[in-house]
């Protein structure tokens, strides 16, 4: 018995010693690493910058991976390596985990609505020369600081097949009632699915559930303003009005037999193969369409006609995306900034823009996207910038787990606007109280 006790004591001691030596070993190593870095700076050794990004288009990932390698010819001491992800959600999850461990790559790509979350992890870029030429960067400053540079802007469009419109004798709609009318006429004809909705994936309903209340409110600061109200979702609010419009569409049976049963890819394929007549998406859809259909001959677009009557101006939702920032934990701040200056220099940026097939975010550099040029030749809508909610909005919407795209799914499954808004108002009020 005594031996057993003694044995236990010894075991515990060994464990404690092992654990302690493990801990001290870890911290010792990190200080060594820090020492190494300090030395390397002095000796101007070769530096490798890691750049993390996502893109659904493989060709673009290949293009960017090759493009950043060219930087080594400008600055032989710096090598830039791309780490790519296929979807933004996988990417976000990965960088959140790394942010938690303080191990972010040197350069990170971001969406505008992630900037507030990552404000502690990003180095302010106000002193970068290229920032002054960026058209949108200031709009997305967090606490007055520019934390990331938007690389592209693009309009959110409604795509259609002109051949179908011609066959069914339809006019391009410019108001919401006209839009509904067009969809219903396609439905009555029966040959095509009027609207291709990949509702199974939730996100494809964003042109409606995310953008409609925002654009109806006519305030770019709409989302941040929500955080200042106790009940911003009830009757009489832009949210309620917008969601009523959306319900009108979702309940009109114009999205095929089971919009919630098919995903975004399948919905895209339905549209590309001309089984569906209309679908809404950003300009980024055009390269996908072209690669699958082989030609853009039977593709045209119009601004989503959110407005009720022609008396109000027709607005076009503009999105800025593919922001790049420098991680504040990066040990190569200066090298990263120098790379950004090169990356956004007119010659390099022009190639980036052509690779992305999107619209410019910089003065003096125009994009060469023929589809976009045709669109702007036919349509001159007033532009409306999507500005994400501020930190207060993000905090509240996270607290009530607000996902407007999932709400869209619930609406497609039959939930009414009254049920949704009542529930949201109650949760929002409660969350504001607990803040």
């Amino acid at each position, binding site marked *: 018995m005594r031996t057993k006790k003694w*044995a236990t004591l*010894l*075991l515990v001691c*060994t464990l404690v010693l092992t654990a302690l030596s493990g801990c001290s070993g870890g911290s010792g190593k990190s200080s060594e690493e820090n020492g190494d870095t300090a030395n390397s700076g002095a000796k101007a050794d070769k530096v490798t910058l890691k750049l993390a990004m996502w893109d659904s288009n493989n060709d673009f990932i290949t293009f960017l991976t090759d493009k950043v390698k060219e930087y080594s010819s400008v600055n032989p001491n710096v090598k830039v390596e791309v780490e790519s992800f296929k979807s933004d959600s996988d990417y976000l999850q990965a960088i*959140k985990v790394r942010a938690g461990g303080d191990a972010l790559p040197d350069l990170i790509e971001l969406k505008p609505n992630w900037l507030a979350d990552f404000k502690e992890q990003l180095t302010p870029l106000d002193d970068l020369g290229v920032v002054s030429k960026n058209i949108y960067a200031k709009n997305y400053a967090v606490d007055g600081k520019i934390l990331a540079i938007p690389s592209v802007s693009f309009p959110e469009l409604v795509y259609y097949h002109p051949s179908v419109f011609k066959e069914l004798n339809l006019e391009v709609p410019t108001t919401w009632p006209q839009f509904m009318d067009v969809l219903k006429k396609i439905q009555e004809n029966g040959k095509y699915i009027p609207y291709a909705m990949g509702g199974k994936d*939730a996100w494809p309903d964003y042109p409606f559930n995310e953008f409609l209340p925002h654009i109806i409110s006519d305030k770019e600061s709409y989302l941040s303003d929500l955080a200042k109200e106790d009940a911003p979702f009830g009757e009489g609010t832009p949210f309620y009005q917008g969601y009523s419009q959306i319900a009108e569409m979702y309940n009109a049976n114009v999205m095929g037999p089971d919009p919630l*049963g098919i995903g975004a890819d399948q919905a895209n394929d339905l549209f590309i193969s001309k089984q569906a007549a209309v679908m809404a998406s950003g300009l980024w859809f055009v390269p996908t369409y072209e690669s699958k259909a082989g030609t853009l001959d039977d593709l045209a677009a119009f601004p989503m006609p959110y407005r009720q009557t022609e008396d109000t101006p027709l607005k076009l939702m503009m999105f800025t995306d593919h922001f790049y920032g420098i991680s504040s934990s990066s040990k190569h701040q200066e090298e990263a900034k120098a790379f950004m200056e090169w990356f956004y220099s007119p010659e390099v940026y022009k190639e980036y823009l052509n690779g992305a097939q999107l619209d410019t975010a910089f003065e003096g550099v125009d994009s060469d996207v023929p589809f976009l040029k045709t669109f702007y030749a036919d349509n001159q809508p007033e532009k409306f910038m999507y500005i994400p909610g501020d930190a207060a909005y*993000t905090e509240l919407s996270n607290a009530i787990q607000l996902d407007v795209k999932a709400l869209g799914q*619930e609406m497609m*499954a039959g939930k009414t606007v009254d049920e949704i808004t009542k529930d949201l108002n109650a949760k929002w009020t409660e969350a504001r109280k607990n803040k």
Partner: protein
Amino acid sequence: MNYNLQKKFVIFGFLAIPVGLLMLFLLYPTVKLFQFSLTDWNGISKTFNYVGFKNYIAAFQTDGVWDALRNNLLYFIMHLVFIPLEISIAVLLNNKIRASRFFRSMVFMPYILNGVAVAYIFSYLYNPINGPFNALLDLIGLEGLIQNWLSDPGVVNYSLVAVSLWRFSGFHVILFLAGLQSVPQDLYEAATIDGAGAFQKFRFITVPGISRVIEIVLFLNVRGALQVFDIPFLMTQGGPGTASTTFTVYTIQSAFKYNNYGLASSLAVILMLMIIVFTQLQGKLFGGKEDN
């Protein structure tokens, strides 16, 4: 150093490594998890505040958590209902039926398949457009039964439970089969001499003989039902809306989608406690039976 001390030193030396690893990878994260569950950490920020048991209270007061648990309950009940059927199949396979070896491996096959592959296969089978399942129903004249398998909030959970049953029942059958093979044949022979029928043999010899295995399967069922994640996450992402969200999906979304690591950690702790409590209860239930 005498021999005894030397011996102990070697033993402790060897033990230190696995126990140390266990502490590092199991105990330390668990302690950390508990620590985070008492904070408002958003998973990204470098700082956090301690908020006491606020997250635990919030977890119990959130409808979404209860809705998710209700979905978990459905997995548990359906798997429970299937246990007698699984035992019956095991009994059948235990008899000398033709090609029983082949059937045994067939039954086990779904369990070996990768969960992600299973989710994708069934997403395809349930597809509303050109989906094989609906096409089959159409072919055999049962088009009236065609449903929006993954998009109707009233149906989606049953569709997902069916996938779970397909995947795990085979494993349970094999466990029962192993249990059955350990029941001595002479008991059956004695029962036959005493004039017992097939059902009586099943009820009084087979079931008590495999009670240990039943207990294991029940434990796996409780644990599996509470932790079910891959099937709903991959097939519906918890949707439409939140209709097929399970407890683990809810936890993951709280952490990664809504940046609420504090709440997610508290949910993970609650999950751990639930599994411990249910397993203990079950152990009591079976332990009590054995005493009788």
